[in-house]
């Protein structure tokens, strides 16, 4: 990078830190941005500036928002008594993409992990419990990943909420478009255990 101007080098270095990009692909992306200055570079810079100035964590649910309370939490239409618990904001976005869930969310910010010494106090579980009463929640849907850590966390939360509210979790099994031959043993076992009348 010695022959390129310092500012461009710095941009390439920053871009190379993004997920999915390395130094070579970052260099390509920066070159592309410079060539499309008007169409890409300036709007991107403005958009990044705007997000940097306004993006913050929703104080209620942990979602990424541009105000202290995110639009999902302020919307009265979403106050239907259902609260969906997810690990990360990316999971919330995935749920929203489906367009099926009409309630509110609660982002834990991770899972219980013995290895990383993440305990219940490090997650947003106390806030979850307080929301049950303050928002009149009738059902908590545990939409945590189907991993050992995710399900350990789900069972822990379920224990904490026992007797307070109805607790459900997402089903586990064969994905849409999935072929049995390509599924791992664990998924097939889970699907078989959760079979339903047809």
């Amino acid at each position, binding site marked *: 990078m010695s022959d390129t101007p310092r500012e461009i080098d710095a941009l390439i270095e920053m871009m190379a830190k993004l*997920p999915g990009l390395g130094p070579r692909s970052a260099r390509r992306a920066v070159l592309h941005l410079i060539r499309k200055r008007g169409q890409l570079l300036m709007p991107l810079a403005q958009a990044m500036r705007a997000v940097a100035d306004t993006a913050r964590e929703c104080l209620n649910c942990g979602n990424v928002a541009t105000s202290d309370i995110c639009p999902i939490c302020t919307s009265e239409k979403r106050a239907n008594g259902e609260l969906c618990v997810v690990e990360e904001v990316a999971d919330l976005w995935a749920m929203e993409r489906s367009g099926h869930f009409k309630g509110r969310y609660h982002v834990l910010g991770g899972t219980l992990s013995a290895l990383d010494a993440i305990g219940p106090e490090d997650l947003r579980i106390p806030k979850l419990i307080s929301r049950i009463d303050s928002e009149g929640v009738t059902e908590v849907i545990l939409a945590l990943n189907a991993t050992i850590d995710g399900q350990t966390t789900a069972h*822990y939360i379920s224990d904490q909420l026992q007797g307070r509210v109805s607790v459900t979790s997402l089903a586990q099994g064969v994905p849409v478009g999935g072929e049995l031959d390509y599924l*791992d043993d664990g998924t097939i076992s889970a699907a078989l255990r959760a079979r339903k009348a047809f």
Partner: protein
Amino acid sequence: MEWRDEGAVLSVRRHGESAAIVEIFTQEHGRHVGVVRGGAGRRMAPILQPGAQLAVTWKARLEDHIGSYTVEPVKSRAAQVMGDGLALAALGSVTALLSFTLPERETAPAVYAPTMALLDMLGDNPLWPLAYLRWELALLEDMGFGLDLTRCAVTGSREDLAYVSPRTGRAVSRGGAGDWADRLLPLPPSLLGQGPAETFEIAAGLRTTGHFLETWLAPALGGKPLPAARQRFVDAFARQSRSA
């Protein structure tokens, strides 16, 4: 350097964008860490779950290097425990305690066999809580802190053993305990291979093994506290014991 072995996943830590550093309790090479290329990807995620049994090939240029693993799934245990919160908590405790206690790259045959048997039972066999309790005893013994539950430390009798001395780890009979009984730890009969393993007995046994894990084993390993996963399991078990 290259070897092949089989073992259970203890932990997985993301390394860079797509790789993972995986800690595996292997049969012939003990607790051993290596890098799995693509281990953080979606294809490998179901394979690299804690407790999963893998056939592994480890390669490194020098023996001291962290090396890389090539893994083949042998048995997934995730599905059998995911629906059972207590079994999940026990799995977390087993993997965390093994990571915490076992020295790296030292074979541990006396712990390996009971560990694999226990992992197979979790969530599948109703006797797994007793197997878990005995596994903790085997772990203590392998680490050099075995309890002597064969005879009473006071009277020498082999009958009516009901307590364990918190200082010596030796069994004490009801008669030998006398007025000191309330200062001793419980020794449930199921730990001696006698009678059915009732839930409250297992809970009592966990209190006893927990005492020695905390006061003997943890200080010998640098004084770090026991993994929180064990306490979470014990708490969950106690809750079930009370409701049973």
